[in-house]
């Protein structure tokens, strides 16, 4: 087997605070090929911080440490700022949660997408514009020429998220991190956006890290799942085996998902045990 796309060994992210350090990500190791990896966990379990750490964008006072963190042969731990800038957007990229906040409100959609092009591909203005229109088409926006000129506040949530996807994929990265890409959207458009994301990732043969708290989506969308609790990966399993998970936390999560077919008088709550963090 060829070298995996991404290798992470013993990743730790800590925030120094007034009452001592907070360990947001603890001793996380995994490898990723050109596959879909889901990362599931409740709020505050460190899944978003993990995603940011992979892009070298954890906010300032925090400390990132790992035994190994490499991406397609590049040692990410030794990257200079300049090297990171060439990697981000071009080789690895990220779709963020809410397009309402993650698109720049005073720049047109077209210019924001074309900017990624300018930053990495050294194309002419015309060419960047053409690629942007193609990319808008690829995320199934009907009138790319019109949407090109719109500002983010003129878009619906679903459109905004498609623009986000276009912006992050236009430079054709090999790895995409999707951090709760549909959580801020209407349920009706969630599936549409997921389908677009799915098609693009499949078409381009990219690796995908799908961060979510939605077990159902993750198990149907991903090949493999990491379950995080308190900054730690408590279990790793294949998506289809999620129902037969061994760890009590994962089983708790699965049990707490209500099913449409079975009538239940009481919903199970997730039990937590501090022991798991030891």
């Amino acid at each position, binding site marked *: 087997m060829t070298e995996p796309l991404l290798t992470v060994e013993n990743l730790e992210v800590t925030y120094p605070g007034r009452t001592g350090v907070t360990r947001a990500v603890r001793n996380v190791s995994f490898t990723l090929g050109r596959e879909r990896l889901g990362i599931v966990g409740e709020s505050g379990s460190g899944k978003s911080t993990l995603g*940011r750490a992979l*892009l070298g*964008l954890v906010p300032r006072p925090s400390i990132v440490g790992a035994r190994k963190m490499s991406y397609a042969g590049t040692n990410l731990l030794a990257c200079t*700022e300049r090297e990171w*800038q*060439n*990697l*981000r*957007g*071009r080789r690895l*990229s*990220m779709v*963020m*949660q*809410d397009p309402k*906040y*993650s*698109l*720049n*409100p*005073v*720049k*047109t959609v077209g210019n924001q997408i074309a*900017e*990624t092009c300018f*930053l*990495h591909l050294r194309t002419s203005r*015309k060419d960047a*514009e*053409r690629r942007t229109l193609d990319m808008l088409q690829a995320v199934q926006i009907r009138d790319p*020429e*019109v949407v*090109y*000129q719109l*500002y983010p*506040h003129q878009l619906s949530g679903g459109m905004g998220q498609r623009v*986000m996807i276009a*912006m*992050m994929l236009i*430079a054709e990265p090999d790895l995409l991190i999707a951090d709760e890409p549909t959580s801020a959207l209407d349920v009706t458009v969630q599936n549409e956006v997921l389908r677009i994301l799915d098609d693009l990732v499949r078409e381009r043969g990219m690796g995908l890290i799908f961060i979510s708290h939605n077990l159902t989506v993750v198990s149907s969308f991903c090949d493999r799942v990491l379950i995080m609790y308190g900054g730690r990966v408590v279990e790793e399993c294949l998506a289809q085996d999620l129902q037969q998970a061994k760890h009590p936390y994962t089983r708790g999560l699965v049990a707490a998902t209500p099913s449409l077919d079975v009538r239940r008088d009481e919903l199970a709550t997730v039990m937590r045990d501090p022991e798991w963090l030891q």
Partner: protein
Amino acid sequence: MSSTGTIGQVGRRHYLTSIARSVISFLFSLIITFIGLTAVTFLISKMTNIDPVLALVGDKATKEVYDLAYKALGLDQPIWVQYGIYLKRLLSADFGVSVLTGQPVLTDLIRVFPATFELATIATVIGVLLGVPAGVIAGACKGRWPDHVIRVVGLFGYSVPVFWLGLVGLFFFYGKLGWVSGTGRLDVFYNGVVTTRTGIILIDSALEGNWEIFANAFGHLILPASILAYYSLAYIARMTRSFMIDQLSQEYIIAARIKGNSYWGAVWRHAFPNIMVPLITVIGLSYASLLEGSVLAETVFAWPGLGLYITRAMFNSDMNAVLGGTIVVGTVFIGVNLISDLLYRVFDPRLRTS
């Protein structure tokens, strides 16, 4: 590509109509605000116990002359008629005669306002050119040494009184070093050489191509302008810093970094365009307050400007001059607000459609 050409046109046409619409709605609000302004100045003139008739005829006049003047000024009419007369006079640019200078107030204002305008404009230009970048850098380097340096320098400008800075500045740069010219707008022997067209000496001398006078006027202007600029710079930098800190914590900044922008690329290309609206407000207010005329700076530098004129008029109960000055200051504020409001629409697309 022909398709992109049409997008551009549609966008531009939409943009122009929205600008036109806002101009009209602003002209309307301008009229309303102006009526409010004149009503206030009119009421002030009614409430002060300075007798306008006495100011006109002098205290040696006979009872007959006094009564005649009383009638001629329309003071026997009901108050709304008097307000009507007042408005009519204002519209024909008649502010009455100044007791102090013996000249029509309008003539005085045309003389003093350009002096203040020149000073305030140069001061604001310097304040913006230095203050905005300083604020952006301080905000982007929050908590590190560039931030501390800029804050200390700014705090100094904010807290040291203008007259002290003026005197010390004159002592060093004029007295000791001789880098700048002294007080006043021009050296005495240059007075009256250039025809007054705008009253702004830099422009008048440039129009005539008289660069000797231009240089002399600039030498007189630069010190008081720099000192006023220091004050507005400190204010602008402080506000810019806090606007930047606010924007830099937004999600779209992280998105910009993920795309491959450098930190400073995200700061200037993404965060900075987003602070334009509050920044324009701050710059506009600071400019308008400088246009009122800075009494202290004008006194220290013997600058024949609006602040000095209004203050002198007030000390001498010269009501016509005070009210005329108030109208000018009020109009300046209305004008600056109007321009700021138009600029908001240029910089923030969210404000264009409404």
